[in-house]
């Protein structure tokens, strides 16, 4: 459930950015990079900081 919540949070942010800056969602490569940062690197960094 925690993983799902992280993905949903990442999706909401991606959609909001995409709606206002449509260039952001023109590439699957950008999306993959964003997803790596949002659901893997950031949560991992936050866990290490705790």
């Amino acid at each position, binding site marked *: 459930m925690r993983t799902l919540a992280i993905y949903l949070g990442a*999706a909401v942010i*991606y959609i909001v950015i995409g709606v206002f800056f*449509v260039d952001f*969602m*023109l590439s699957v490569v950008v*999306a*993959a990079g964003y997803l*790596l940062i949002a*659901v893997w690197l950031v949560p991992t960094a936050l866990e290490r900081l705790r």
Partner: protein
Amino acid sequence: MSWAAHDLEPYAFQRHLGLKIAFVPLLIGSYAPDLFTKWFVYGITLFGIELKADDPVQFHRGWPGFGFTHSLLFGLLIGFILWKILGSWIWGVSFVIGHWAHCLTDTGDTVGTMLLFPWTFHFNLGAWAYAGQTGRFTDAAAYFSGPGCMWDLVWIVYGLFAWRVLTTEYFDKHIFPADSTWSWANRLIPRIGLITLYRAAFFYGTCRWIAWTIWAHVIHDYPYDLSWGGPDWVDAATP
């Protein structure tokens, strides 16, 4: 043309074919027909110079033009080359499946594809308007106002129905063992990163479907027209 179907269809095939296919070439195949042409259809500006096809429809789907990239023969040829160069039958077959899915999906619009190239007949159902020639934004607005976006929605719903293909367990059991590319990549990226990359196309297709829909109908006020060949407010291209 389709906007999100090409991101989502590979997961549906994956669900049914399991270990018989490799996901990476399947996804590459699904993107392949538009990989080197889409930017020139819409046009880009590089160092102040605008690069755009004079006749985007002819360039994208026609002959003379790059329409042959949307043919079954082209998919077979690239699949064969991948098989022989990489020595991987599963890469070749998976590429062909992804590529053919793209070609068949694009027969849904008003231009269609030359499926049986060198025969230059365009197979087209005419279910939704092809509007690539109008530029990226009008094309997006038209696509997300017509039957095309409903076709994408089918794949999103199907993907959610088949949610197990997106799980870590499924990745470990079916995706990773089917293709040595993953174990090679695992030397650089931890498993959790690979799983994230595996899910990326589904994330991308679903999120941008929602975002473009909001953009077209909340931020802007483009009218929906889900009738066959719609939306009627855009100048749909034909072969």
